[in-house]
C-alpha cells in the first residue's frame, strides 16, 4: 500500500537548494581549513583552543544539513509513511546537544583557569627566518578564520530567506557568533601582550558562552519541531499568520459553513489539517469529495511550502480529533 506523494520543490527553489548544497560544502571545507590554520598556532592559549574547537563545531551543522538533504526527498516508505522530510530535525537535535555540551565544558575549563589564576604562556615561532612572538601569529590566524565566518554568514542569509530554511538561518547566526567570538579572542591575546594574563581565559569564557547560546537556540528550535509547533517566522519566535490566512480563505468558499486550521512544520514543508463544516444543503458524497479535493489544491497554492494538507469534513468543529485548537475569532496577523 502506498500513501501520499513525496514533496517536489518549485523550480526556482531548486536553484536555491543547489546553492544550499554548495554552501554547505564550502562551509565544511573553509571551516576545516580555518581549524587547521588555528591548530598550527594554538600553543597554550585557552582562547585559541576554544576558537579551534568552535571552528570544528560550526562545520558539523552544514554536514548534518548535507546528510539530511540526501534523505528528505525520499518517497514515503512502509516504515516511514510520513516521508523523510523531518530528517533535518534529527540532524538538528544531534548538533544542538553536542554544541551545548562542548560549550559548557569549555566554559568550565576557562572559568577554572581564571579561578586558579593560570597565566597563559605564549612563546615564539620562527617564520621565514624571523623569530617572532606566537601571539601575533595567533591574531593573524584568528583574523583569517573570522573572515571566513563573516563571509559564510553573509552568503547564507539570502539563501536561507529564499528557502525559508531555519537550519541554514541558524548556521548563518552561528557563523556570525563565530567571527564575533574570534574578535574577542584577538582582544584577549592583545591583553596578554600587554601583560594582562586574564585576557586569554576571559575571552575563552566569552566564546564558550556564545557556543552555549548557539546550542540552546538550536535545542529550543528542535523542541518546537518535536512538539509540532505552529509554523514560526524565520529566525524569530513569532508565529506565522499562515493558519489564519488559510482559515479566512476556506471560510469564503460557498460550500463551507465554518473551518479550523491546524498547521505544523514538517522539515522544510508545512503540513496540517483543515477541518471544514459543510453547509448542509444536500451535498452528495461525490460532490463532497470533489469540493474537498478542490479546496486542498487551492489552499496548497497559498504558500509554496504547503504539502500534504488534509481537508477534513466534520459535522461540527467540536468533534475534531484530536480536539481543535482554540482559535481567536479574528487575528490581527490575519489581516496582512
Amino acid at each position, binding site marked *: 500500500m502506498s500513501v501520499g506523494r513525496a514533496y517536489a520543490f518549485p523550480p526556482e527553489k531548486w536553484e536555491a537548494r543547489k546553492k544550499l548544497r554548495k554552501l554547505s560544502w564550502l562551509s565544511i571545507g573553509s571551516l576545516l581549513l580555518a581549524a587547521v590554520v588555528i591548530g598550527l598556532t594554538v600553543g*597554550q592559549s585557552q582562547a585559541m583552543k576554544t576558537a579551534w574547537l568552535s571552528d570544528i563545531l560550526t562545520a558539523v551543522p552544514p554536514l548534518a544539513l548535507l546528510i539530511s538533504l540526501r534523505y528528505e526527498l525520499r518517497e514515503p516508505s512502509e516504515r516511514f509513511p510520513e516521508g523523510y522530510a523531518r530528517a533535518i530535525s534529527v540532524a538538528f537535535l544531534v548538533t544542538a546537544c553536542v554544541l551545548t555540551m562542548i560549550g559548557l565544558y569549555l566554559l568550565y575549563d576557562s572559568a577554572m583557569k581564571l579561578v586558579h589564576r*593560570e*597565566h*597563559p*604562556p*605564549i*612563546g*615564539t*615561532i*620562527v*617564520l*621565514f627566518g*624571523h*623569530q*617572532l*612572538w606566537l*601571539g*601575533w*601569529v595567533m591574531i*593573524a590566524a584568528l583574523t583569517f578564520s573570522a573572515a571566513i565566518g563573516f563571509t559564510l554568514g553573509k552568503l547564507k542569509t539570502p539563501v536561507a530567506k529564499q528557502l525559508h530554511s531555519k537550519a541554514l538561518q541558524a548556521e548563518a547566526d552561528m557563523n556570525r557568533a563565530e567571527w564575533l567570538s574570534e574578535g574577542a579572542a584577538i582582544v584577549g591575546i592583545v591583553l*596578554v*601582550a*600587554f*601583560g*594582562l*594574563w586574564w585576557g586569554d581565559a576571559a575571552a575563552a569564557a566569552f566564546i564558550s558562552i556564545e557556543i552555549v547560546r548557539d546550542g540552546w537556540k538550536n535545542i529550543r528550535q528542535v523542541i518546537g519541531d518535536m512538539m509540532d509547533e505552529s509554523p514560526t517566522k524565520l529566525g524569530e519566535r513569532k508565529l506565522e499568520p499562515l493558519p489564519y490566512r488559510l482559515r479566512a480563505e476556506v471560510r469564503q468558499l460557498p460550500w463551507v459553513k465554518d473551518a479550523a486550521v491546524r498547521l505544523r512544520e514538517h522539515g522544510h514543508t508545512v503540513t496540517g489539517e483543515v477541518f471544514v463544516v459543510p453547509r448542509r444543503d444536500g451535498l452528495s458524497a461525490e460532490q463532497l469529495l470533489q469540493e474537498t479535493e478542490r479546496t486542498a489544491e487551492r489552499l496548497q497554492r497559498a504558500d509554496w511550502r504547503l504539502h500534504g494538507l488534509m481537508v477534513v469534513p466534520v459535522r461540527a468543529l467540536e468533534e475534531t480529533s484530536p480536539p481543535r485548537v482554540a482559535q481567536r475569532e479574528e487575528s490581527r496577523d490575519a489581516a496582512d
Partner: protein
Amino acid sequence: MQFRLLLYIALTLTTACGLPRDTEGTLDRVRGGTLRVGFVVDTPWVTATGVGAGGVEGAIAAELARGLGARIAWIHASETPLLQKLHDGELDLVIAGLTKDSPWAARASLTRPYYVDTTTVHGERTEVPHVVAVPPGENAWQVYVERVLESRKRELAAMRYAVAR
C-alpha cells in the same frame, strides 16, 4: 607580499612598544639584577660545578644572565619542588634536562626546543627535543629566552658532545 608586510608590522610592534609584556615583570627585574635558576643534575645537559650548574643548560643560564648583566642565584633541588616554585614565581628558570613531552607542560612554560637529540628506545630511533622551563605568562621573558636559544643553537649542539666526553 601582504604576509611579509604583516610580519614586519608584528616585528615593529614587538620592538617599538615592548610587546609582549610580562605579567609579573620578570624580564625587567632580571635585567641588571638577579636571575634565580633552579637546577637538577642530568649529565650532559646539567652538571654540578661546585658553585652552580654547568653542562649545556648551565651554559644557557650563564648566557641569559650575561646578556642582561645579571648575576645568577643557583638553587639545587629535585624537579617537583623546583617546578612548583617556578609556577609560583619564586624562580625565573629551571634547567633539568627537560624534554618537550614533559608532563610539566601544564604548570610551567616549556620553551621552544634548543636541541633535538636522537636516542634509541627499544631499538627505535626517537627524537627527543630538549627544552628549559620558564614561569607561565612571563611572555617577554620567554621571548627573550627563546631568542637566545635560537641564536646559540649551533654552539649548544656542539656542546652536547663536548660535555659528554
